[in-house]
């Protein structure tokens, strides 16, 4: 079962990576990259790295990709999506897929996995990562904040329109 899941996710990851490289339209590439990042997040979960999976979805698929899509929209304005919706048949599939997903959520909710407390603590659980970050890697962690501040200031300096 785990092998099956791994191969499905791996296939999706490779296919979306190829889509990113091969599609001409950068916005399609960005959406493919979101799929790829989601697949990598799923693989993190399979490896027992829950914290990284959540961070991957929030930081990469959320924040960074929004930045990318924003930049693409600003820089390539001539390929605006206008006219009739090219994905009209997809709407017919949307309802059954939505029902299926709802059913899945219900099944997960009912499953005994949620009710039994986790007994094993793999070395990569969120507690040990947090303890490492604030003990062994405390100095790099603080340097990271300086890095983010430097990036913030640098972006503001770059993006400011020169008035002269």
């Amino acid at each position, binding site marked *: 079962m*785990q*092998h099956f899941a*791994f191969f499905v996710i*791996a296939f999706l*990851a*490779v296919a979306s*990576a*190829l889509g*990113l*490289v091969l599609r001409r339209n*950068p916005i399609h*590439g*960005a959406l493919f*990259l979101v799929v*790829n*990042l989601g697949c*990598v997040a799923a*693989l*993190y979960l*399979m*490896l*027992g*790295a829950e*914290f*990284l999976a959540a*961070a*991957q979805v929030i*930081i*990469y698929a959320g*924040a*960074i990709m929004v*930045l*990318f899509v924003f*930049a*693409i929209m*600003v*820089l*390539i304005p001539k390929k605006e999506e206008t006219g009739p919706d090219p994905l009209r048949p997809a709407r017919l599939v949307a309802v059954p897929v939505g029902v299926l997903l709802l059913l899945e959520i219900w099944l997960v909710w009912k499953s005994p996995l949620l009710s039994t407390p986790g007994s094993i603590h*793999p*070395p*990569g*659980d969120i507690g*040990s*990562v947090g303890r*490492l*970050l604030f003990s*062994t*890697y405390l100095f*790099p*962690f603080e340097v*990271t904040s300086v*890095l*983010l501040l*430097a*990036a*913030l200031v*640098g*972006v503001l300096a*770059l*993006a400011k329109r020169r008035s002269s």
Partner: protein
Amino acid sequence: MVPESYYIGLSAILFTVGVVGVLVRRNPLVIFMSIELMLNAANLALVAFGHRFGTADAQALVFFVMTVAAAEVAVGLAIIVAIFRLRHRLSVDDLSLMRW
């Protein structure tokens, strides 16, 4: 249990696709996204090795890589926007000069 070598192999494939993207494409935005792909492949390899050797250090390292990637994307996109303002074209072939 899926052996870690599968994850390493997948990571290698994703990294290769990212390298090909950087080499083949001319749009700097797509090149940037390919770089993100490579960073992700490296992260995946790190997590797989951390799982193999039973330490959480790899995950702390991946956390730092993610932070650096976020900073890098912000600065890189700002640079691309600044270049676009100057040149009004978006192709790395135009950017062969160090100054103009």
